[in-house]
């Protein structure tokens, strides 16, 4: 049976480790994705991501399943290329909407590359 619990604060049974439920909602990642950006792009695993688009070399759009409240949320990401370095960057000018972001993968030499491992997470307020 489904149930709903309305509560302001959570504590462990001993009464310690208090945390407001607002921190649970605010502090949880709202989406994350791990995908292969080479060849035909493919999502390996994700949460609350509806799709990704291969826009061009090293350029991807990540579309969210649930909209954010505004475009002021935070992203962080990591990519993999030990030889050249690989960094996740916003597009410039930035494409950040309540339902999608556009990213580029750069090497340390500022070349734009497709990369095998791209991981991005989203923190902020849901709509």
């Amino acid at each position, binding site marked *: 049976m489904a*149930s709903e619990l309305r509560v302001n604060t959570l504590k462990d049974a001993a009464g310690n480790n208090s945390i407001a439920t607002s921190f649970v909602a605010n502090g949880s990642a709202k989406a994350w994705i791990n995908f292969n950006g080479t060849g035909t792009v493919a999502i390996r695993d994700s949460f609350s991501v509806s799709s990704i688009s291969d826009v061009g070399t090293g350029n991807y759009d990540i579309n969210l399943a649930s909209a954010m409240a505004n475009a002021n949320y935070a992203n962080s990401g990591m990519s993999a290329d030990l030889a050249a370095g690989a960094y996740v960057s916003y597009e410039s000018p930035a494409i950040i909407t309540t339902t999608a972001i556009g990213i580029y993968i750069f090497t340390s030499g500022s070349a734009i590359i497709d990369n095998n491992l791209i*991981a991005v997470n989203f923190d902020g307020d849901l709509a």
Partner: protein
Amino acid sequence: MASLLKVDSLTGVTTAGSISVTGEGNSTTTNLQQGLAKAWASYEMYSSDTIRGSFNVSSKADNGTGDSTIAWTNSMQNGYAVGSMSSENLFVCAQQPRGNAYNSVLTTSSGRVFTISDGGSPLDSNVNLITVHGDLA
């Protein structure tokens, strides 16, 4: 009315590993378990090899310059964890280090992480911060 729930464990009723939480906008719901960070660590590589603070991290191995393996206490479900990392080296300002990951060594039990300079050379960094999302086993 304020309320307080004292509990040691939260488990979903319909699905044990799935609890819905209403988001900040009071309409959309999000999955509690999937949204929680599964591990984080703040560690040093430059002057000593030390974990300053961590959650769900059992150990850190120094594999060489700029090369660390972070072991999770509780295993991930697959090797597709989502890590984000930032690093800084206050003592080598000319070489801004960057966090990086080497995909072939992301496993269910650990992640191998590299810090490299702007020039792409391995570099021990003073401040390294990593957060890991994904599904627990």
